[in-house]
């Protein structure tokens, strides 16, 4: 039972850890203070994007530049929606199954395509996203074609949360993002992260030291897709209607833009900042210049790469860097 105290007892990390607790506290208070469904909805979307971006950064560690993450989001959404609609199983069971199924697809696909390096992988992952979308479009009897699937049931009540307003969805996605963040952070900071980075930095060298590159690439691809599938399942039962264009190429590219704008130094902070900030910004822009967001995103991405190569995340570290410089 002593572990929370132990966790706070680490003197070097105490500042960060107290900060994290305060941050989580604020996150939980936001919907109570805002009281406006529209704002809560934007934050929910920000959290969904955060999960996608975190997985994307994990893949980047191995030098895998994926342009197909929305494809996995879609697989999670469709599989979960269909499972609940047709088999009548509970959402809480389906979300896990959807994650596992998405991971299984990624695993099988990964075994085939992860022998490709660099741009070749990027192009194939891009094509994969499109192939999946076209399957939804054309297999009308199962996926409903252009109009997709509607009437997906909302999650069953759990722990007193009744999914009729935005609020319970908000807490659910915060919980899912938190779990994803903790798992991916631990992977990134432990030995797995060390191996992933070694492969990303110099795969020949890594191989000469005994690392089975393909195995770790498939592993990370499967893990990232598992969480993308979970996020997709959440999305299906949040919207209650899903259609192919929600999981298009543009969404896959957005994952990459949001993560890069946020910063990729850590697997959690950058993606979180990038996803939330960019989602809010894109909503604001929609009011003024609907349809032109992609243009703005491009400009923003280029500006960040040129003037803030560490991403928005590096703004938080300015003080710490200065402190190091002084000592």
């Amino acid at each position, binding site marked *: 039972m002593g572990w929370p105290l132990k966790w706070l007892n680490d003197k070097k990390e105490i500042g960060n850890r107290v900060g994290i607790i305060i941050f989580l506290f604020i996150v939980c208070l936001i919907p109570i203070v805002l009281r406006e469904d529209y704002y809560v909805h934007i934050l929910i979307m920000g959290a969904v994007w955060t999960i996608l971006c975190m997985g994307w950064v994990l893949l980047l560690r191995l030098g895998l530049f994926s342009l197909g993450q929305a494809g996995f989001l879609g697989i999670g959404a469709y599989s979960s929606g269909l499972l609940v609609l047709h088999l009548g199983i509970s959402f809480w069971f389906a979300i896990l199954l959807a994650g596992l199924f998405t991971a299984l697809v990624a695993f099988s696909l990964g075994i085939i395509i992860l022998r490709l390096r660099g741009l070749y992988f990027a192009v194939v992952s891009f094509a994969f996203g499109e192939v999946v979308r076209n399957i939804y479009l054309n297999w009308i009897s199962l996926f409903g074609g252009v109009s997709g699937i509607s009437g997906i049931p909302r999650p069953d009540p759990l722990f007193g949360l009744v999914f009729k307003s935005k609020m319970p969805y908000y807490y659910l996605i915060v919980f899912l993002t938190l779990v994803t963040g903790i798992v991916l952070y631990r992977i990134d900071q432990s030995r797995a992260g060390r191996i992933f980075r070694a492969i990303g930095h110099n795969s*020949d060298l890594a191989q000469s030291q005994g690392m089975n590159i393909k195995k770790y690439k498939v592993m990370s691809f499967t893990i990232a897709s598992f969480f993308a599938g979970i996020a997709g399942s959440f999305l299906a039962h949040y919207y209650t209607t899903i259609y192919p264009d929600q999981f298009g190429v543009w969404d896959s590219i957005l994952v990459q833009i949001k993560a890069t704008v946020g910063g990729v130094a850590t697997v959690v902070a950058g993606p979180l900042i990038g996803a939330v900030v960019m989602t809010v910004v894109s909503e604001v822009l929609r009011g003024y210049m609907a349809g032109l967001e992609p243009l703005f995103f491009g400009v923003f991405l280029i500006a960040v790469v040129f003037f803030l190569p560490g991403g928005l995340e590096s703004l938080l570290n300015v003080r710490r860097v200065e402190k190091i410089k002084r000592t």
Partner: protein
Amino acid sequence: MVLLDVHDLTVNFGGLTAVNRVSLQLNESSVLGIIGPNGAGKTTLFNLISGFLKPSMGEVFWKGKKITGLRSYQIASLGLVRTFQSNVVYKDVTASENIMRSQYLHFKTNLLQGVLNTKSYQEDEEAMKKRAQTIINFMELSDWSSTLAGSLPHGLQRKLGIAMAMACDPKVIMLDEPASGMNPGESAHIMHKIRQLSDRGIVVMLVEHDMKVVMGVCDRIIVLNHGQKIAEGSPDEIQKNQRVIEAYLGSEEMVL
């Protein structure tokens, strides 16, 4: 005992035979040098033995077991570790992190234990840090252990590369031009380290252009030219060998 037995190894790139029926044997406690003019196929031979290239013909045996066709990471896990001519280190991290990564084959706890941060993982991590420190001390790199590997001078990067190969705890270490681009002082130091490695029971096989280094540390030398083995013997024998002199300086008829 014969550790490594290479039999008629051949590789063709289109019409070019880069390595042509090369055979060699590596015994315990020896330093084998491979020399030859540029383009003789020395590095290609290394790539073939270490599994980075697939041979067109021929076989490689490790302690009597056939290892041709195994992947490079599998060959490394047997204890046959090679270094590279360029890009020898992970440039974006510190020297000590380079060594930590190189101890991959010695991690005793699995990745899940790492993710859960179990006690045995933490102990293993501590043990690895200690082990890394000994290797850094051995290669006399402790002053640079927290420097980014990419910003180290060339000579030190090559030394770090050898330290990283050592961190894999190899039985045979294959060094691809360990002294290239080094000044005389640095290459003398590398020679000293190679001898120390050999004294520790590690079998060394090296490709090198610096004749002082080759003649100074090798017990036996193999000479390649146009992919073929043209001579094998002790440094003294090689220096007097007519075919070797011809390969390096050209024969008299060609001069006419």
